[in-house]
């Protein structure tokens, strides 16, 4: 459709405006998880929409708009946050030991001797509130949060995340594993504090 700059028509511009408004909850939701602050997230979305508008003529097909917009949003976030100091912190985190990836919420909750239709894991997930998950993700340090958000919230492939962040796919895997483990640890801590964990799970933790 937009094979050359001249191909963008008035109707394309109106269509773009309508689509952006339609996608706002998703754009904002992703931006909010990345930035952790509502006003920063709004500014990030506005920045991404402005960047997309400027390069609208590079969009090849209307059905590619969604992925294209989210790539622009992610790149805008990363450009704002990228710094030598941040990179040094990220590399130090990547070199950390493997203990962080060992935590498994399932293993804490699972009761292997329970009848198979007894399901404390599902019961636990059913009690989780959206705000519990939001807080747990927001508590992740940035390199882990960004990878978890891009893979689990946005559904990006490891290759796409590696390309966006300029890191090897192996580092994406490692950050994802650590990020998810830290997320599950935070959920476990929260659930324990809120009294959501069944007795067996608590006993196992006390014993460990």
């Amino acid at each position, binding site marked *: 459709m937009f094979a050359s700059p001249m191909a963008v028509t008035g109707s394309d511009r109106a269509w773009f405006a309508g689509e952006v408004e339609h996608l706002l909850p998703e754009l904002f939701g992703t931006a909010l998880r990345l930035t952790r602050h*509502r006003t920063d997230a*709004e500014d990030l979305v506005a920045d991404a929409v402005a960047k997309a508008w400027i390069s609208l003529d590079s969009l090849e097909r209307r059905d590619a708009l969604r992925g294209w917009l989210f790539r622009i949003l992610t790149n805008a976030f990363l450009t704002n946050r990228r710094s030598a100091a941040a990179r040094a912190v990220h590399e130090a985190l990547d070199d950390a030991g493997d203990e962080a990836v060992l935590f498994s919420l399932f293993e804490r909750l699972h009761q292997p001797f329970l009848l198979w239709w007894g399901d404390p*894991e599902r019961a636990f*997930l059913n009690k989780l509130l959206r705000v519990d998950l939001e807080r747990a993700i927001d508590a992740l340090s940035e390199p882990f949060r960004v990878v978890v958000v891009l893979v*689990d919230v946005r559904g990006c492939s490891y290759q796409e995340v590696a390309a966006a962040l300029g890191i090897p796919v192996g580092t994406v*895997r490692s950050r994802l594993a650590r990020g998810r483990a830290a997320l599950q640890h935070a959920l476990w801590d929260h659930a324990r504090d809120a009294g959501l964990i069944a007795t067996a799970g608590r006993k196992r933790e006390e014993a460990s």
Partner: protein
Amino acid sequence: MTDERVLTCEEALRFLAEYLDGQLEQAEDRDVEGHLARCRSCYSRAEFEKQLKQQVAALGSSDVRPEFVERIREMMSRFIASPTAPGS
């Protein structure tokens, strides 16, 4: 087409995250699926991780303040009216 490789629980769990993320090659994907069809414990783990992943994915959409919708509308109107609008 190669035969399914029989995985141990340890091997299946090592592949589980990539399986749920849709990142495995077809043959590995089939190997993990085969294990999950036979092993109740790993199947339960996979279902748990899948549901948690779905709940995290649901965070990708958030309510937007009406003031922000208005801000974007105004920005778009300004852009569309601009003589430097793409294709104008």
